[in-house]
């Protein structure tokens, strides 16, 4: 004494009932996969196996697409928007009712802190359904063009960083607009999607409207290549996004792609500095930095660079890294051994290239996949850690002298998903927001998300938007004319 040790405050796991193995969810029922090899999904914080999950083969995907097609033709496309909306409202409420269960399960399967699943992932997922439910019978008011109609069957492939939230971003607008869905969750995080299947059952959503096929790249490929798919929505890496764009070239399949980023978080010398520090922290350590819009390049005005780095390091000392189920944990586990290897490799490259590496040296759990919050100073634009998406809790610090230089450095990347600007000067914020080539600009804040707010990138960060009125455009076709 005095020490203010927060005793462990773990959220109880008892709220979650895990089955030893999970089947595919096709046509409203859990069904055996045909031919694929079941795979384990593990808790990345402990490496314990949580459950075995079926691998959907191309034949299974075909079954799912056919179920979705039938549901589309016979039920969903004929249903009034108002009734579609009511199903979405039901889903929103069910997610709220079972929020704790979803939060704990997401944390178990993904490794992210319970604080985030509880306060961000799950409530936002419910909010997305709630928001889109209201659109279902109002599409003709959405300025989407004349006579907005659904595409039909939508194939959706989502990543492991926000498993349930990305599912909500994809399924809610698709269903609101009258499409039916075949969705593949990421192979390392399938469990909340499978629990969502139960929600669909509880909501008595017509069979086949939502189909969930688990698997890895091959399953995703089968969805992308399936001729019965009218529209694809993908969130994930830019490399895979390009493969998808390539695969559907010359077809009439539409795609929206939400891909990688290397966001600049720009701090001017007149920034509200304590809040800016928080913004840097949440920008790069939220979800262990495994966020496509993470503020992974800190651009600090040279005149306050030293002060910002000092304050930032001091703040890092108070970050709590460890058990994701502990309510006091700020930084959880990296999602997979593979991702950890990638982060480790790129951090080593940063060191080898001459950037200065620093971390708090905080203790890490023995089992599981862990990476300390790390900052690199003296980083140059030409360093790989300033160019490549690390997708981990690794911040690269660069400096600039003038607003123009900040813009030039921020835009000097093939990506264009997000950017942060911190300054108390209003006109400079608006000028910067104009100049930055990115889909989302957070000024004096960072990593804010809302169902009403369109999200998506410029350049190689993908195309199409998710959320808001704009997000609906991805799921309707309108009168085509010259």
């Amino acid at each position: 004494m005095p020490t203010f040790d927060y005793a462990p405050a773990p959220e109880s796991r008892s709220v979650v009932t895990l089955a030893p193995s999970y089947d595919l969810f096709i046509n409203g029922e859990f069904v055996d996969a045909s031919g694929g090899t079941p795979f384990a999904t593990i808790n990345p914080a402990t490496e314990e196996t949580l459950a075995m999950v079926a691998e959907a083969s191309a034949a299974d995907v075909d079954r799912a697409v056919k179920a979705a097609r039938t549901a589309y033709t016979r039920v969903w496309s004929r249903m009034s928007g108002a009734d579609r909306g009511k199903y979405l409202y039901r889903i929103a409420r069910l997610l709220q009712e079972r929020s704790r269960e979803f939060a704990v399960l997401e944390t178990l399967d993904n490794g992210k802190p319970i604080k985030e699943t509880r306060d961000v992932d799950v409530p936002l997922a419910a909010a997305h359904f709630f928001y889109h439910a209201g659109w279902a019978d109002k599409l003709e008011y959405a300025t989407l063009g004349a006579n907005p109609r659904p595409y039909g069957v939508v194939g959706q492939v989502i990543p492991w960083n926000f498993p349930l939230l990305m599912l909500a971003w994809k399924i809610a607008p698709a269903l609101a607009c009258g499409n039916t869905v075949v969705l593949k969750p990421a192979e390392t995080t399938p469990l909340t999607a499978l629990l969502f299947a139960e929600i669909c059952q509880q909501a008595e959503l017509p069979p086949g409207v939502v189909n969930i096929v688990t698997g890895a790249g091959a399953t995703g490929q089968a969805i992308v290549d399936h001729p019965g798919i009218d529209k694809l929505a993908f969130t994930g890496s830019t490399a895979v996004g390009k493969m998808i764009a390539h695969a559907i070239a010359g077809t009439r399949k539409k795609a929206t792609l939400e891909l990688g980023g290397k966001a600049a978080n720009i701090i001017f010398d007149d920034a509200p500095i304590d809040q800016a520090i928080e913004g840097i922290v949440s920008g790069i350590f939220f979800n262990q930095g495994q966020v496509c819009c993470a503020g992974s390049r800190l651009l600090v005005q040279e005149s306050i660079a030293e002060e910002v780095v000092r304050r930032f390091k001091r703040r890092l000392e108070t970050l709590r890294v460890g058990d994701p189920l502990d309510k006091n944990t700020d930084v959880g586990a990296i999602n997979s051994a593979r991702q950890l290897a990638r982060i480790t490799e790129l951090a080593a490259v940063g060191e080898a290239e001459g950037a200065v590496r620093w971390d708090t040296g905080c203790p890490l759990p023995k089992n599981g996949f862990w990476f300390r919050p790390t900052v690199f100073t003296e980083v140059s634009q030409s360093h790989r850690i300033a160019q490549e998406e690390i997708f981990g809790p690794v911040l690269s610090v660069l400096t600039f002298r003038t607003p123009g230089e900040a813009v030039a450095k921020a835009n000097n990347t093939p990506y264009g998903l997000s950017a942060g600007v911190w300054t108390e000067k209003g006109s400079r914020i608006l000028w910067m927001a104009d100049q930055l080539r990115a889909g989302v600009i957070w000024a004096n804040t960072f990593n804010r998300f809302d169902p009403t707010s369109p999200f998506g990138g410029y350049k190689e960060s993908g195309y199409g938007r998710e959320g808001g009125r704009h997000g609906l455009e991805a799921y309707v076709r309108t009168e085509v004319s010259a």
Partner: protein
Amino acid sequence: MSRVDVRKTYKLYIGGAFPRSESARSYEVYAVPSRAGARPRFLANASLASRKDARNAVVAARKAFPGWSAATAYNRGQVLYRVAEVMESRRAQFVTDVRDAEGLTPARAEAVVSAAIDRWVWYAGWSDKLAQVLGGLNPVAGPFFDISAPEPTGVVAVLAPQASSLLGLVSVIAPVVVSGNTAVVVTSADRPLPAVTLAECLATSDVPGGVVNLLTGRAAEIAPWLASHRDVNAIDLTGAADAPGVSWAELEAAAADNLKRVLRPGGSGAEAVEPDFTATPALSRMTAYLETKTVWHPKGR
């Protein structure tokens, strides 16, 4: 015998200048006879653009982008309206060009030119409406001001329609540049002369050099270079319909390498069909080249 007329040399339009192709090549352009069975009439030797001309055009378009996209919407609207004024003053030339290019009767050609000018005016008026129609405030659940607005995506490569040499051309260029994009346009191969006349209108109005670049020649030769060009942000494949040797599927595949925004040609399945340009356009021709930017800011005291 009347006087010997002075004929025009038809050239490319790149960065506001009228260069010949760097390859020094040209190709013969013939008028479509208005009567079946008549012999095609030689019109001109058009410049045959090469991949290097395309490269130069992209450089010019990229250079023009910051200024054009940063111009006020009102200013862009004025500049584009001015283009329509200049087109009107060259109506006679356009009528002749379109008649020769498409084999139309004089009356039909007049109608097409009128429609093309009207189309240009229609698009010009969109410049300062787009942000209001497509953007707006997002009512987020928190103390934040959150606004979304459209922005131009950058440099857009356009394969102009092969058949509709003026109305179609105008209908694919105007929606690109009205929002602040800059364009590299591959004109109709067999009907390039209306495009060159349009270039003269652009050059003599207030459109900054490089905002629109026109390449006469064969899409099969140039388009692959534009589709794979990493400094091109979007590509309109409309002109792939009926362009000899052009596979829009291959172009789209090449465009995937830097995730270009792709506007596919009309038609269904693998078939590409040139659309009917007489109908009032949909917003999608403009939105295809727009990005949505969303800006958040806290609201506090």
